[in-house]
């Protein structure tokens, strides 16, 4: 899609991130899409491939308040959301906000902590608010969680329930860099960490404005129909135990709007849907155990569905 003219602000943000992250343009793009579409990202990869760097660079580019939560088995919900502490001087309970009260949050190794703590995070993600001691605290806006999980270690982990995976707009993998890229990583590691030299491209106000603008991106009925057809097919597809929910349809549409906006369009194309569907839908699909044993992955299923559903090429007959 070389002839696509990218939105200039977004292009700047991406260039900014690229100063720190070598390669991985698509991961940066997808993370930005999630941020712009007011969603959250689940990054699944081994440690050390630059997940933290990525999200920090993103936070810095939009001048956001960056928080990081390292999830451990003994982490309590209040360690995430914050806690009310009695202040003897003032003679009352005072709320001390937890790390969730930031703009961009890296929830590292989310599957290491207990379900109780996980759900505190996930509630915050879904509701954009947390309730502590009966008082509802609005979270800051924009609010963006990038959770990571390590797919290698299973010992002592609490895998996220499928229902909670649904809360993430996108799920993706980082992957290792190419050889040239990794050499470049080494070169840069000899110098001052470049993350310190990053300057914000826009401020939070600007980001919120972008988010608002993205909601205006036009989605034609043919495209909506196309989205629904795809999501529907995942529910009926052989080997699938549970297909994507309507929330999946919404997620796909929102992500596609953000993606279209990123590429300077004010309308969504089937191409956007096709590109995003694997990232949006695959973690929302539960396979039957037979399919798993056969080595079929959810991504494969989504790709097959995309190949099967006819792309709309005519206006709907009304």
């Amino acid at each position, binding site marked *: 899609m070389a002839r696509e003219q990218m939105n200039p602000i977004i292009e700047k943000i991406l260039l900014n991130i690229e100063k720190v992250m070598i390669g991985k343009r698509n991961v940066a793009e997808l993370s930005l899409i999630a941020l712009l579409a007011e969603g959250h990202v689940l990054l699944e990869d081994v440690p050390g491939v630059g997940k933290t760097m990525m999200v920090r660079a993103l936070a810095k580019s939009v001048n956001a308040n960056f928080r990081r939560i390292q999830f451990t088995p003994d982490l309590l919900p209040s360690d995430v959301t914050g806690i009310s502490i009695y202040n003897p001087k003032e003679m009352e309970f005072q709320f001390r906000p937890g790390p969730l009260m930031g703009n961009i949050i890296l929830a590292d190794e989310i599957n290491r902590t207990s379900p109780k703590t996980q759900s505190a995070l996930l509630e915050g993600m879904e509701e954009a608010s947390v309730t502590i001691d009966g008082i509802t605290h609005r979270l800051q806006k924009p609010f963006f969680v990038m959770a990571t999980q390590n797919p290698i270690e299973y010992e002592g982990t609490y895998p996220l329930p499928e229902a909670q995976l649904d809360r993430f707009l996108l799920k993706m993998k980082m992957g290792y860099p190419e050889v040239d890229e990794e050499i470049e990583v080494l070169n840069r590691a000899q110098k001052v960490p470049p993350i310190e030299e990053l300057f914000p491209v826009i401020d939070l106000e600007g980001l919120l404005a972008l988010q608002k603008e993205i909601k205006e991106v036009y989605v034609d009925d043919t495209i909506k129909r196309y989205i629904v057809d795809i999501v529907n097919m995942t529910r009926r597809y*052989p080997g699938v135990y549970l297909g994507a929910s309507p929330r999946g349809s919404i997620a796909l549409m929102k992500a596609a709007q953000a993606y279209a906006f990123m590429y300077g369009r004010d309308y969504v194309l089937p191409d956007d849907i096709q590109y995003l569907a694997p990232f949006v839908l695959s973690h929302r699909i539960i396979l039957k155990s037979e399919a798993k044993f056969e080595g079929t992955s959810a991504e494969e299923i989504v790709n097959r569905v995309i190949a099967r*559903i006819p*792309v*709309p090429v005519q206006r709907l007959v009304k």
Partner: protein
Amino acid sequence: MKRNLQSFLIYLFGFLLLWEWLRPVEQLTTTDHIEMFILFILLSFGVSFLRVRWIWRLILKIWFILYSVNSFHYDLGFFQTSWLLSFLQDISANFSVILAQDWTGINNELRTLLFFILLWLMVYLIQYWLINRNRIFVFFFMTLIYITVLDTFTLYSANTAIVRTVAVGFAVMGMLTYYRILVKEEVGANSSVTRRWMRPLVIMIAFSVIVGFAAPKFQPIWPDPVPYIKAAGDKGGDDKIGTGVSKVGYGTDDSQLGGPFIGDNSVVFRSEAEQKNYWKVETKDHYTGKGWIPSGSTSFRIDGDELIPVNSIPSTVETRDESSRLYLFMDYDHLIYPAGIQRAQFEREYSLEVDSIKEKVSIFGFNNKPIAPDAYTVEFKIPKYEAAELRETSAANPGQMDAEFIARYTQLPENLPERIKELAESITADETNWFDKAKAIERHFGGSEFRYDQKDVAVPGENDDYVDQFLFDTKSGYCDNFSTSMAVMLRTLGIPARWVKGYTGGDFQEYSDGDSSKSVYEITNNNAHSWVEVYFPNQGWVPFEPTKGFTNDVSINFANPDGTPAAAETTAAPAPKPQQNVRDESGTSPESDNSFSFNLFWLSVKIFFSNNWKMIFILSVIVISAAGLIFRLRGKWIPRLYLLQFRLRKKDENMGKAYLVLLEQLERYGLKRKEGQTLRNYAAYIDTFYASKEMSVLTDRYERYLYHQKLPEGTWKDSRELWENLIKKTIA
């Protein structure tokens, strides 16, 4: 594939299909022990189905083959190893034969072995098609072709084989289609789905088989094309095909008469003459009880323009001269001549060889080789017999005919059933002279109990007499039956008679160009005929026509007894009407009184088709191929129409339709878009194909139109240009 009922059925169907290939082998070739071969394919399918280990399969099959070879060709027991040695010797003895490409010299031992190996391969192949590929159509189709070809060209009757094959073939194809769909759609086979598929399949096949079996089958309304194909194979038609069914036409071997034959309207010759007359080729004088053979052969040579001494009309008969020109369409080296032949005129100086017994005249060229001229003229006399004179003869008078002559033409086989003579005597009891006796017998065949038929005609068995069978048993047959019977009956009465072969007068074709008094008649193989000549001492050989439905226009003057002159009347067998053309016979009896009935209408349609089938065939071939051509070239002319259509339009909204037309046209051109392929992706593909950017630009606009419901105003003209360029690229 799992080992269940379905796979069992598939193996079974495979076996049944292959079996169909072996069934005709038994009937049509001299292969014995066919049951062992069938058993072998059954065994091969069986062990595959039971999934016996390959090593055991191999051992089992080799053992079976060796055992069969041993039991077919060697008397030694199986466990006496000496036979194996001689088997190996027999096989190795064939190597030189094979090297010499003397295929008929291969001995039976090797043939058996090779046939087994062939079957082995076939079984493997069918299994591969069925189990691995889930496809069997090619083999099924080949089976059908094999059966139908054998049915058409050999004695093998595929009436039930075709039903079996169709039922089995469609069943197995239906099942395989089902499995293919299961695999393709990645659907697990559960029993309800299977039932939903299999039930209609069984019902449909059963229904179509029953309908096909029970439905009335019309006789073919077009002439059978097979004789043409065969005629192309053996031009001239002088040799008989070695099957039971003969083809109508002129043949030389008449020692075994009887059996059905197939019509054939290939043209033999055209004659240009004033009137129609019968054409002779030869006569036969010796009846064997099964057919006719010449009693001997004495031949002499004459020059081409000499008087031909086969004239059967003595000078006592009043005659008039006539000539006729013949244009031959087939390469016959014998003369075809009318009864009163005088001379033949050829373009070149040919010589003739006359066989005085058969009265067959062969034509020879300069180098004394038989030659088949393209055309010649015959001069002949047309007799006008006087009935009174014919009636004069009532007994063989040794003064007029020598004893040898009488013996020759009243010859009969010794074991001729007595009742033929009794019948002849009872028919002619009231008559006194030979002529009236002959007429009485001729009339006898006009009776309603006799039926003209070409298909349902018996061949006499070993102990049957050909005439006896016809007269008393079957009573249905064609010219050979009638003429032979009449000749034999006359002979039982002591009247000299002989059997004549040739052609009837043919069909009127057109008036002659040169001579207005003459007409052109066309004589085809369907006009091949046989009749009877009776000898009258004072009148020579007089032709009679016993065959039902045929007329020989011989003029006989029946003068009244009181002397008043009667008009020269042409008499003939009391034929209901002249029917020369076999095809016209089918159902020409209008039974209803209604002036219009469906049958009549159907009949006229059939007649129209049978008369004009060549033209209809050619026309429909032209129409179909034209339609096919137009369809094939649709990629060229449809877009031109669209080009014109859209050139006249002005609105931007035309973009939508135009783009869809372009998509269709590109698909016709062969650049197919996959269902799940986006327009943008497809446009990129098209642009790489044409090395342009037009499609992408146009697609971008269409995307706006379709996915954004907005189109920049005034872009149609520009878009149309892009669109036209792309359409033109597909036409170029």
